[in-house]
């Protein structure tokens, strides 16, 4: 127990090497304890909890094969639903880490690995449009996370002040065998390194948000990102980069310490509705359209135009936080959905994603 706690403290202190070594020592002891527990129903929940704990320690000591063995043991017993969910998540993380290791990718603290899977992905190749849009979205999420962690109010438009851009994003060459790139948050030499947020904390925050989006825990995402603009931005950008289920089946994120996969499709990612007083609700009806985004204005709030293939023009109001994803689609064919306000004669945008032309 003592070693596991020391490993937790070392990880917090950023002493990764010591954290791994302590976790390894803790695992060795945990394994001995696990072996004392007989594999029978009467041993539950001790049996599955101890194998789950051994799996976590093996994972933190980077002994992934051993971790997966303990996960299999725990799942073969009668783990609680909560523990089963945690173990399956850990198992997916390990699968991804093993695939990185097999591809020879070693991540550093300031690196985020972004990769995609699906029929649009070949051996070391990917359809340009499928990858670039997601890479731009990941970049947006990193920039917005930096601003949020630095306590900057959400800024809808205009150039972001230099002090809120302490990092330069650098890409490493794609890895052969799977399609992924490493996004490195580097501090340019001419800039003063900042104490908070550290690159690893920003990456950790992005991955945690993606985990919550993929788990359908929009409530928990709201707790992680209480500021409305940043919450809406994170969710709408995640929806924009979510896989379509065919050409792209998964978008994976990994850092040195955690990993997450986005496998939900855009239609499954729904923002948490806000409570609105009923009497103040104007007459609105759901509306979905396809067309080209053809103008944008920051006057009268944020308003964009959309022209359908039949030439019909619609005005669309963009709420705070959806600016990033709208900007990314300007001039392109898109699907939009929201509520049409008959008094204002415009649509309140709730969803937008690109259509492959």
């Amino acid at each position, binding site marked *: 127990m003592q070693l596991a706690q020391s490993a*937790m403290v070392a990880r917090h202190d950023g002493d990764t090497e010591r954290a791994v070594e302590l976790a390894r020592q803790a695992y060795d002891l945990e394994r001995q304890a696990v072996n004392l527990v007989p594999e029978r129903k*009467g041993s539950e929940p001790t049996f599955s909890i101890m194998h789950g704990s051994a799996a976590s320690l093996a994972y933190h000591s980077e002994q992934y094969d051993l971790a997966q063995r303990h996960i299999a043991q725990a799942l073969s017993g009668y783990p609680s639903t909560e523990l089963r969910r945690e173990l399956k*998540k850990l198992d997916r993380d390990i699968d991804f880490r093993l695939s990185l290791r097999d591809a020879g990718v070693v991540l550093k603290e300031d690196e985020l690995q972004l990769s995609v899977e699906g029929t649009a992905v070949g051996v070391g190749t990917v359809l340009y449009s499928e990858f670039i849009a997601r890479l731009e979205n990941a970049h947006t999420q990193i920039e917005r996370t930096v601003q949020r962690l630095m306590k900057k109010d959400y800024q809808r438009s205009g150039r972001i002040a230099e002090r809120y851009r302490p990092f330069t994003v650098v890409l490493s060459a794609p890895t052969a065998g799977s399609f992924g790139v490493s996004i490195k948050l580097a501090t340019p030499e001419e800039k003063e390194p900042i104490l908070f947020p550290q690159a690893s904390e920003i990456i950790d925050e992005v991955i945690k948000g993606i985990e919550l989006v993929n788990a359908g825990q929009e409530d928990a995402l709201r707790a992680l990102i209480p500021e409305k603009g940043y919450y809406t931005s994170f969710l709408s950008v995640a929806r924009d980069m979510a896989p379509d289920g065919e050409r792209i089946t998964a978008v994976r994120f990994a850092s040195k310490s955690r990993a997450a996969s986005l496998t939900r499709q855009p239609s499954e990612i729904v923002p948490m509705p806000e409570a609105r007083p009923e009497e103040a609700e104007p007459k609105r009806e759901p509306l979905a359209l396809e067309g080209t985004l053809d103008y944008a204005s920051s006057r009268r709030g944020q308003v964009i135009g959309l022209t359908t293939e039949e030439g019909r023009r619609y005005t669309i109001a963009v709420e705070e936080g959806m600016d990033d994803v709208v900007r990314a689609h300007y001039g392109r064919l898109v699907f939009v959905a929201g509520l049409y306000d008959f008094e204002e004669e415009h649509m309140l945008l709730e969803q937008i994603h690109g259509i492959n032309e």
Partner: protein
Amino acid sequence: MTAASVLDLDSLAREIPVIFPEAAGFYKHNCMICFDNQGHSSGVSLAVEREEGNTHLPVLWAGAVDTHMKKAYADLRKATEYAACAIGLLLVRELTGFTAVEQAMIGTTVDYYLAQQVPDDTLIFNDAPRLETSGILQEEGTNTVDRRVREKLERLKVDALPAIIAVVEFGCPKSKMVHHDDRS
């Protein structure tokens, strides 16, 4: 519960069997950072709401928050979660017949398991309630103690395993403790 209960952060290592000195210091510092960030100092009163009756407990600690500590614990979100865990461990010891005697690493966090006394057989987690904690630096909008408790109960209702939930808020310091046990 003793006649004059306090939550003494310096007692974490002494009186909670599962907490070792290095982790005790870590947890204590996270608590100090959260209270200090919200303008509180040692002796601040924590309002505790629970089924058995509400109470107020002073939170005590020795030492002061300095610049070095603020830098080391700059991520307030993580600090809040660790601090809530420490306060939860102390609340359980002060207000229930339980104390944390075992831990399990699950994912990236440490789960603590409670017992009336230190178990002496190998089935150490059987019948031991788990301590489920969550922290809020300052309640705001929908991010409230009541809502967190509801979310935890919702998540736990699929499991029959017993748990004690403790959600802690550091702005206007308060905590809500709820027992969950659906075993038939």
